[in-house]
């Protein structure tokens, strides 16, 4: 579980990135962290992982203060950073060397995911393509069984079949004790797997809702024309006419269009927090 209260953060010689940011995320969910470029998504993830120290406010992750970097805390946090590097070794050697540092690591689970991602334990990490290395990193992270999994742009560099495999594997691997935070610009890659949407903008949490709440409040639809439509909250031109967000007035539900929802939030067309 993550609890952030009144977080203030500022990089040197820059305007404050977060001012009085508060947020709560419960275990047993997959959270999509969205925001424009420079909104502070990666900074927020780095703060949660203890990679950068807290300046002001409180942050508790799984009962620990991340910036203290206690080994027990670090053993329960696994991250797929946007940029990564591997030593010149094989998948097998890397796994044998690194996995014992994570007490809950499941080697069988890793093997299963590696098979699904078509990766071989004998492959040399530095001879794999960027996408293959990313798939291994995702596989390792999921097999770590850490309580907090932080995935920063996990689908960047993955081909289309791998993206759907990633979604399938992630959903099948996460337990009720885990919290997965995915930060991405490629919202279509995650719109079917997340339980909660958090949007960061201008140093604040602009939107923080579960999928259940979203489905109860808004209806996403593509219509040929806006004529005759009442109560359109937000619309965008599309090839088939218009993509619209409407308030839910009856029992009907629609598949989430995360990109449309995100744009509407950023344009303040939807009243959020």
């Amino acid at each position, binding site marked *: 579980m993550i609890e952030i209260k009144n977080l203030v953060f500022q990089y040197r010689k820059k305007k404050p990135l977060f001012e009085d940011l508060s947020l709560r995320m419960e275990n047993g969910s997959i959270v999509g962290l969205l925001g424009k470029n420079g909104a502070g998504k990666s900074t927020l993830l780095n703060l949660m992982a203890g990679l950068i120290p807290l300046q002001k406010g409180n942050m508790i992750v799984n009962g620990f203060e991340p910036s203290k970097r*206690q080994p*027990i805390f*670090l053993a329960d*946090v696994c*991250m797929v950073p946007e940029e990564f590097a591997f030593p010149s070794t094989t998948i097998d050697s890397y796994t044998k*060397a690194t996995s014992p*540092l994570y007490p809950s690591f499941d080697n069988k689970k890793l093997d299963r995911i590696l098979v699904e991602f078509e990766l071989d334990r004998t492959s040399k990490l530095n001879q794999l393509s960027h996408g293959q290395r990313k798939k291994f990193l995702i596989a390792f992270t999921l097999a770590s069984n850490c309580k907090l999994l932080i995935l920063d742009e996990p689908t960047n560099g993955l081909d289309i079949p791998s993206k759907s495999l990633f979604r399938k594997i992630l959903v099948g691997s996460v337990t009720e004790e885990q919290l997965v935070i995915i930060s991405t610009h490629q919202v279509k890659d995650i719109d079917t797997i997340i339980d909660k949407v958090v949007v960061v903008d201008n140093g604040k949490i602009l939107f923080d809702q579960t999928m259940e709440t979203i489905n109860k409040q808004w209806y996403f639809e593509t219509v040929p024309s806006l004529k005759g439509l009442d109560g359109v909250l937000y619309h965008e031109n599309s090839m088939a006419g218009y993509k619209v967000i409407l308030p839910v007035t009856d029992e009907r539900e629609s598949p989430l269009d995360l990109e449309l929802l995100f744009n509407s939030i950023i344009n303040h067309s939807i009243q959020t927090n």
Partner: protein
Amino acid sequence: MKFNDFFNMKRFGLLVKHDLMINQNKYLLKMLVLFLGLYAIMVLLMFDGPQQFIHRQTAPQGYIMIFVFSLIALGVFIGGSFSDLGSKVKRTSFILLPASTFEKMLHPFLLRVVLGIVCYLLFFWVDAQLARLTMANAPSILIQGLVIEPFHYSQIIDGMGRDDFAMIVFLLFSFGMYLFTMPLFFKKQALLKAIFVFFIALFTYICFFSLMSHLFHPGNNDGLGFTIPDFKVYKELTSFDLLFDSIAGLSWMFFLVFGYFKLKELKL
């Protein structure tokens, strides 16, 4: 803070195993380069000036000279302890490794400093014996009929002076600890910057002494020369000895503590 948050033997063992499994080839290559490099230098210098390796009134100067200069290689090895931290990507992996800051500092200290020094001393001794054996089988004309003296560490101790040996060792160790911790302060080209800063600091120190000497002892010194008036603190111990011994004997502790806190506060 619980002791387990600071140090855990099992976790430390796993951290060392992790590093050795991943970097074993790199370490073996470095050891091989050091071993063969020392051997090659010794043989070359023995051919070039065999008289440097025979015992006259003093210990064979050739061994002492190679020992002193090859310490640079050891310094570079020790100075490479945290060199990966210059890269943001590697810094991320390092910080996220599930181990305490103390363990993350102790591990390169044991591997690079303790094991590095032991291997260096062992390799130097073995190479010196091997080089001498090589020369013993070389045609006599090449080494001007001289018999190369066997190497003993007592020759190095004698060469440095038995009275000052302990302090010289401490001084070298302190400089080693300076090189060990400085990469934590510089992100790129850490070793070069550390050496540059060392010479800047040394020059500033000399300038300060010189300025004080010109102010308080006018006419006694020219240019950057300086006078340090010393007095006996205790029996044969002068105030200058005390200053030198304090710097040599204590600064390594300062660097280690300073480095620990810098590592603790390491960020992206």
